[in-house]
């Protein structure tokens, strides 16, 4: 493998610098160092977790790929004497790897894939990208560079090899690749036993050479065709395996390669997990758990999810966004030192400074809490630090318990809502989570309608759901659920009893029927009808009663435990809620920003003189802003002379009350120069360009004419 390890002393220095940055913003901010360390450790933990998740999710795919590579390779070697193998045209084994449109995630997948292959199959792996390979020549160069380098990496001690390789590099043709491959495999054959143990325990005598095309779609047809044709001629000496990374659909193979070329390939399809499922797992493991003290507020989560669903489908971007949230939270919230595991948090509460106590007193949620207390307690809270710390410890514990319970009840509710028709509260648990965070979920219409639907569930569904809920509560870490579990189990047994009763009644009815048989027809009919009626009403009520009871019980749980986090005291410590910051950073609008900067320079410059009201053009604004505003009023073609005149009028408006008498029709040279400069700046920014249609005119490039 060729990995670069960053030298650690440098890293330390960098992080030291970051600590300083962390404290730079507010001079009254506290404990910056501690905050930074907490943030780092928390993020490292989260990162490890996400990597683990990634690995688990990819495992299936990678296992399939590895076994495919093994198979393709062994077939090439084993039965060369058999008739079928001699006659069959030798195809290049090819894996078409469909990865989905989230192109940004592919890099990571390919990196871990090549790691897995390196450990299991072959040391010879080359990753190529379309942008590096405009022609076959570049492709071959890239390939040889990567393959031969990776050989050097394996045993870099022998110097003579290196010379040989560098000599070979001049000729980048398939034959030199084959020569290289032969020499390499021969060498591993005749290697000392010590070395053999290390290398050939994992790989075969002649391991395949894997070439991964990262972005199949972007390759030009000719490059791919030529490469495949060339390598198919040497497949016997050079066991090549291709992996096509495909973002759209495998149809692209057929549209890129003509039949004469695709007939040289032996393509098998592999599909990766969809990124939506990946995201669900990530949210499940990162957010819906009490492992990590840090939480996302509703708006923030919504922004992240929206970016994912609306824009890129990229899980990596989601995680990056999450990282930004973590950093931003610890950076902007001085109380975030308490955003750690409960045990540590309690310790840290004791050593809070007076300033930090004041910070806590300033929290809106805490103020609400204080107001709800008795008056002598209020005074104590607001004046005595030690008492405050005591209370804080208690409140933090409350918050922790709330989170523990929240997750289990949320999952339980999700079991119910996810099986309702039309999903009034959303199909995914993340939607439910957002709804619960947003406001009191039981007050929404959707909740009402889903309860109504839940009251119409049939028995078998209800029973399986209850069983699932029991499982959730049993496996949860919350301590208050013993009673709940008991209650749910009781419901289950009641349903069971209902079942038995139903059967008994059936029997009795049938016996009744037999009894009635002897009476006349009219009576029989009548009694039967009555029986039927009574049976329906009676039995359904019994089941219905129980069903109502169950739904009401769940409703009670929801009202009890799914209180939105905003209502909780001290929620500011662990929840990151500033969605606007996130939106600014992750979903920037360059056009809008540019327009604001030019149209309303006060927004960025914060100069009182620029504060203007409405549409008037101030002459204090930078020249480019004046020119920009004037050009907004023009059509697609702008007459430069008119523009200049307007410009000079605006500029002269105030400063030149006395000057305009002297040179009213002659534009000042300085102003002319300023104008030209402003215009060329606008051209540089891409708002206008010189036009050949009319002399002395420029063409407008943005939103023509509005």
């Amino acid at each position, binding site marked *: 493998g060729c990995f670069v390890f960053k030298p650690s002393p440098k890293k330390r220095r960098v992080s030291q610098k970051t600590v300083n940055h962390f404290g730079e913003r507010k001079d009254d901010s506290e404990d910056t160092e501690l905050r930074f360390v907490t943030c780092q450790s928390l993020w490292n933990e989260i990162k490890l977790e996400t990597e683990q998740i990634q690995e688990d999710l990819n495992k299936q795919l990678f296992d399939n790929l590895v076994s495919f590579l093994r198979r393709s390779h062994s077939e090439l070697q084993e039965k060369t004497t058999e008739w079928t193998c001699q006659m*069959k045209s030798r195809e290049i084994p090819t894996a078409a790897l469909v990865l989905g449109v989230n192109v940004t995630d592919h890099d990571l997948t390919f990196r871990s894939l090549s790691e897995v292959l390196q450990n299991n199959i072959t040391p010879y792996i080359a990753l190529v990208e379309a942008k590096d390979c405009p022609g076959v020549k570049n492709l071959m160069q890239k390939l040889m560079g990567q393959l031969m380098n990776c050989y050097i990496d394996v045993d870099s001690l022998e110097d003579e090899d290196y010379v040989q390789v560098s000599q070979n590099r001049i000729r980048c043709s398939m034959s030199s690749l084959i020569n290289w491959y032969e020499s390499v495999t021969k060498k591993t054959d005749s290697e000392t036993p010590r070395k053999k143990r290390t290398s050939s325990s994992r790989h075969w005598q002649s391991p395949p050479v894997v070439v991964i095309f990262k972005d199949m779609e972007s390759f030009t047809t000719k490059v791919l065709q030529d490469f495949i044709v060339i390598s198919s001629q040497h497949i016997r000496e050079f066991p090549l395996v291709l992996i096509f990374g495909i973002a759209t659909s*495998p149809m692209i193979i057929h549209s890129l390669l003509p039949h004469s070329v695709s007939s040289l390939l032996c393509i098998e399809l592999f599909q990766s997990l969809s990124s*939506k499922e990946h995201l669900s797992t990530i949210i499940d493991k990162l957010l819906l758990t009490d492992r990590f003290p840090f939480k996302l507020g509703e708006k923030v989560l919504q922004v992240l999810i929206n970016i994912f669903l609306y824009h890129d489908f990229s899980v990596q971007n989601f995680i990056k966004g999450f990282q930004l949230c973590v950093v931003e939270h610890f950076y902007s919230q001085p109380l975030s030192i308490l955003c750690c595991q409960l045990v540590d948090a309690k310790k840290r509460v004791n050593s809070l400074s007076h300033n930090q106590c004041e910070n806590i007193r300033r929290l809106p949620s805490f103020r609400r809490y204080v107001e709800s207390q008795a008056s002598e307690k209020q005074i104590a809270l607001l004046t005595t630090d030690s008492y405050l710390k005591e209370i804080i410890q208690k409140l933090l514990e409350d918050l922790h318990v709330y989170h523990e319970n929240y997750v289990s009840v949320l999952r339980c509710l999700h079991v119910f809502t996810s099986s309702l028709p039309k999903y009034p509260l959303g199909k995914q648990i993340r939607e439910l989570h957002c709804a619960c965070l947003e406001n009191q979920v039981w007050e929404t219409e959707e909740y009402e309608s889903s309860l109504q639907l839940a009251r119409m569930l049939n028995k078998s569904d209800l029973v399986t759901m209850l069983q699932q809920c029991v499982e959730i509560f049993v496996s949860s870490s919350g301590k208050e659920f013993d009673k709940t579990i008991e209650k749910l189990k009781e419901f289950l047994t009641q349903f069971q009893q209902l079942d038995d009763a139903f059967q008994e009644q059936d029997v009795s009815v049938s016996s009744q029927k037999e009894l009635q048989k002897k009476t006349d027809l009219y009576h029989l009919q009548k009694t039967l009808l009555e029986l039927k009626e009574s049976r329906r009403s009676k039995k359904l009520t019994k089941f219905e009663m129980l069903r109502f009871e169950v739904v009401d019980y769940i409703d009670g749980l929801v009202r009890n435990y799914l209180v939105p986090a905003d209502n909780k005291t001290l929620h500011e410590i662990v929840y990151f809620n500033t969605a606007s910051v996130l939106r600014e950073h992750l979903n920037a609008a360059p056009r809008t920003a540019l327009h604001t900067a030019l149209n309303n320079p006060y927004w960025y410059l914060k100069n009182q003189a620029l504060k203007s009201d409405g549409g008037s053009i101030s002459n204090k604004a930078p020249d480019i802003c004046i020119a920009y505003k004037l050009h907004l009023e023009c059509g697609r073609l702008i007459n430069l002379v008119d523009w200049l005149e307007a410009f000079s009028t605006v500029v002269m408006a105030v400063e030149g009350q006395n000057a305009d008498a002297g040179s009213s029709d002659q534009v000042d040279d300085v102003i002319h120069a300023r104008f030209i400069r402003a215009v060329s700046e606008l051209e540089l920014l891409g708002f206008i360009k010189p036009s050949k249609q009319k002399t002395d005119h420029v063409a407008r490039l943005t939103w023509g004419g509005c």
Partner: protein
Amino acid sequence: MPNLEHPAYPAATLLHLESLVPCRESQVSMLLSIFGERQQFSFPSIFIYGHTSSGKTYVMETLLNTLQLPHVFVNCVEYFTSRLLLEEILIQLQSCSSEAEQTSHVPCDNFNDFVRLFKQAVASQELQDQTLYIVLDRAEQLREMEANVLPAFLRLQELTDRNVTVVLLSEIVWELFRPNTGCFEPFTLYFPDYSIGHLQKILSQNHPPEYSADFYAAYINILLGVFYMVCRDLKELQHLAVLNFSKYCEPVVSGEANERDTRKLWKNIEPHLKKAMQTVYLREISSSQWERLQCEDGEPGQLKGLSAHTHVELPYYSKFLLIAAYLASYNPVRTDKRFFLKHHGKIRKTNFMKKHEKTSNHLLGPKPFPLDRLLAILYSIVDNRVAPTANIFSQITSLVTLQLLTMVGHNDQLDGPRYKCTVSLDFIRAIAR
């Protein structure tokens, strides 16, 4: 009755050669008569053309190998630059010399060097009294190299003043090669396609040792009956024959039928071959998967082919962008106002419909449209407000890299880029759902 006769070579060798190149006897005898005897100068350049797998490469290779004529065989696709090609020829020349001298790497940048080095190489060996053959396979690639390469190869004999003949193999006719400056005209020789009878004969030749030739010939007959309509490529047919042969033998192995029971065997194999035509032949499923299916005796229906996975999942705005691009590509600009504005004036239907609607826009193909139009349509088809964020723009670019849109004529950096939508109506329908 041997067709090949030549005084320079022993009859036994010729007979052997004939057995190796079935159905190409006339071409081989023609070549032999052009080549003449070993020491005689031959025609300077020969151009051989014919369809894919009409045996050009194979015949040349066997001919030169069996008669042990000194030759160099180079594939022009593999050596994609003139430099690589010339160096490869020189390397092969060196290695074909009798004494195994150290093959040092000689850089050869242009044809002038090549001629000089070629003379040296030939002089150093005992090649003076024999014709040397240089075979350039896939010679159409030569046209993409420097302009002097092709004419120079055609006149190599004259340029080097040595006994050398250049043979060009190609799938296209000589007329497409001829440079407009004129050049030496090579001797052209056409290899016609194999007829069905030829195919039958050649394919039946390589029967597996366990089974009799007749049995295999009957199988080939059935195979050709199914595949001849769609495929005349000898290699491909051979591949298919091997893939499906085990299935054909199944009744014989299990004892249900004997080797002569042709009808039963036909009934067994025919539907199977038809399935193969729809799957393996089109590379919908790979040959190894096909073989595994045969072993497990499963239905090919379980394995979905490549074309079955057409669905592409796209982010919300990407979908709308693509739909907007499609609309912009296939609707004329003047209808935009009518379709996407709430308060468009009255539509003068009569005038409008008459003139244009006859030729469907789908037949004309997608038209390029500027970025601003795409965004304007996007804003009008998405229900809620869309901010023109960086993400939207990057999505357009990523659609371009995914080949769902293509950028047209982007030469002016300041000009708004223009795009074309390259996806089909079906695709858009699937997305819009």
